[in-house]
């Protein structure tokens, strides 16, 4: 299945829009993180969090209409509008447009804000508005409502596998002609409960080292990326997704597929349990990079790598990113590398239960 990428929308610690991703790549600068104080059973500590910068949604939606929209939904809405704007496509037949989003944890802030109303105001004070906003599909639904999109609208939640299955769904819809366009996105948000759990699990680090596979350096991130995907009969200005391969963890990758890639973006993000799977990869002869220090550690990091790959393809260049110590045998991109017609970028995600490789070709 060939799936052209027509536009990129992103909301992350880098800022908003595809340009913010490009600027971060060009400067090779890690975005600023905020320190979140976490109380754990053993200590009070602060952990750096890649907080998303959600600004500019009032360009698309009147401020008054935004009053009841939570932060996670705002991220999804802004990324969706930006993806369409970035593409220059006019989505006129709204029933021929689909939305499929993936998320690891869903709208965490609203999930717990709703529970706050129960704790603070008793069972009689539970907020119905927060309850309805706490369901995982609220971002996709709000995107449908505010953008007038009337095709299929689906949310998939599989922790680290969310991006893979989200993308598989989008490709199937397009390939079978269910719709002409898909807003295909993933996102997650930070919440203090996550910080507590991460610190108690001992999985956070002081610096995200995605190429140090032998230790934990997880630093929570948040944000939302949306790709506007079209049907395979048109060129993708941001490249065309031509392979989606997913198998059980430990399964040997299709070496021919790897060999056809000019470079592979690893979604490694300081999660030591997945790090071992990256360590065992055979990527000899292929350039590699890990861009998670631009967006942080989160279950849907593969989606951010797809967006970054799309931005690289549009610019015709791959960018180096300083990512700390490299303890692997990988050949890391150390300087700007030009991309040629028909070059491929692979986006590779390993987790405890699966390995996914998505390849994007320069059209």
């Amino acid at each position, binding site marked *: 299945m060939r799936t052209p990428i027509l536009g990129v929308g992103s909301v992350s610690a880098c800022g908003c829009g595809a340009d913010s991703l490009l600027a971060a790549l060009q400067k090779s600068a890690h975005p600023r993180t905020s320190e979140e104080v976490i109380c754990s059973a053993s200590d009070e500590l602060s952990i750096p969090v890649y907080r998303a910068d959600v600004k500019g949604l009032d360009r698309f939606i009147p401020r008054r209409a935004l009053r009841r929209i939570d932060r996670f939904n705002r991220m999804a809405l802004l990324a969706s509008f930006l993806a369409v704007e970035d593409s220059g496509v006019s989505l006129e037949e709204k029933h021929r447009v689909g939305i499929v989003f993936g998320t690891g944890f869903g709208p965490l802030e609203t999930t717990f804000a709703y529970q706050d109303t129960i704790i603070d105001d008793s069972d009689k004070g539970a907020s119905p508005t927060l309850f309805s906003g706490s*369901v*995982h599909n609220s971002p996709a639904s709000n995107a449908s409502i505010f953008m007038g999109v009337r095709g299929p609208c689906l949310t998939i939640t599989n922790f680290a596998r969310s991006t893979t299955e989200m993308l598989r769904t989008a490709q199937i819809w397009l390939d*079978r002609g269910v719709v002409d366009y898909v807003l295909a996105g993933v996102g997650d948000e930070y919440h203090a409960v996550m910080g507590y759990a991460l610190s108690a699990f001992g999985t956070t680090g002081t610096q995200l080292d995605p190429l140090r596979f032998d230790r934990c350096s997880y630093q929570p991130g948040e944000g939302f990326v949306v790709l506007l995907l079209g049907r395979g009969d048109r060129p993708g200005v941001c490249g065309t997704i031509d392979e989606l391969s997913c198998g059980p963890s430990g399964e040997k990758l299709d070496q021919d597929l790897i060999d056809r890639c000019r470079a592979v973006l690893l979604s490694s993000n300081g999660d030591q349990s997945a790090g071992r799977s990256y360590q065992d990869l055979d990527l000899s002869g292929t350039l590699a990079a890990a861009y998670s220090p631009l967006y942080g550690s989160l279950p849907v990091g593969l989606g951010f790598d797809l967006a970054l790959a799309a931005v690289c393809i549009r610019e015709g260049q791959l960018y180096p990113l300083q990512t700390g110590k490299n303890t692997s045998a990988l050949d890391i991109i150390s300087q700007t590398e030009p991309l040629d017609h028909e070059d491929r970028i692979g986006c590779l995600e390993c987790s405890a239960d699966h390995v996914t490789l998505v390849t994007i070709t320069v059209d």
Partner: protein
Amino acid sequence: MTTGGVVVTGLGAVCAAGESLPRIMDSLYSGRRNPSLPTSIQADLKSDYPVFEVRNPLDDLPAIPYKREPTRTTHLALIAAEEAIGSAGLDHRMLATGRVGVCLGTTVGCTLNNEPFYRELRAGGYPDLAPVRRYLDGNPASFLAEALGCTGPVAAAANACSSGTDAIGLAKAWIETGQCDIAIAGGCDELSRIPYLGFIHLMISSHQPCLPFDKNRKGLNLGEGAGVVVLESEARSRDRSADKLASVAGYASFADAHHPTAPHPEGRGLKLAIRQALQEAELAPDEIGFVSAHGTATADNDLVEGRAVREVLGGRVPVVATKAYTGHTLGAAGALQAVFTVQALLDGRLPATAGFSTADPEIGMEPTREIVEIDARAAISNSLAFGGNNSALIFRGGLR
């Protein structure tokens, strides 16, 4: 790309009406239902709200050495899945060595809703992380795939009340596009205080046992359960001489793009979904033998759904609303309906819609009042959801 269609070869279900499909159908055909005040939920409210609760599911779990401790939601999914796999004539070895995907819908099962944990953390305590671990291990689709050794696509559809229908629709597409040969598909959810309080405060829960499509309906009753179907390509089922229970002839989903919790008043998305599913199934409206309605017994849902069904399929098609027996099981709802739809096609009869007695002239149609003998070639199962999702599945019978 697979040709020849997708067939249902196995069915499994668990809900308040019974802990296996034969028991449930017996309850449905007997008109027996057992709403009661919840035993697993305590709430400090002025009024009581009945639910449809599964009794002691732990006792019925088949003895299989799972790696992880199941949550109540995944437990329900396992019970239904084991029944479906058994009825399909499959075993774990066949699942582990084949190209098998798992696609389950859920809403409660994907949300970190552990109140004691959160209360302790908020109060400045240091709660044990066991609930978080259980949550992280408890994604229903991933859990089931691991438990059954399935290595194909794995997805949990979190589309609120249409999750189960959408999961089956997605699994159908997996098989049609060659992503896998067999799919274990359906939905599951447990009762939880979080949605229980939420639906009450949305003022769409009823103090009484629900009355789908009735003029005096007061709202829904929550329930819990799981429904699972085994789907296969027609060719694959033929190769292994499997009993083809029905084919999944059509599926479509459209959004209302209207309101976060209310359906579009004209049923815009639902009508599109039914029409598109008919087109995919290559069926005319008058070839639909019955409708398994979403039928939550809320004022808005039943009005919009009833009118949409009447407009697209005509006013004479029999309609049954099984939430009268199961309660609204959220992520499981569409899957349970799908299982009952296939079984009703096989049985050639529809249960009465318990609780219905007085027709609502605003709706202009009424569901089954008693058991209806049917000679249906095909049937449709609808789901409507928060956020304005509308999905329709069409099953075609008569394959035996």
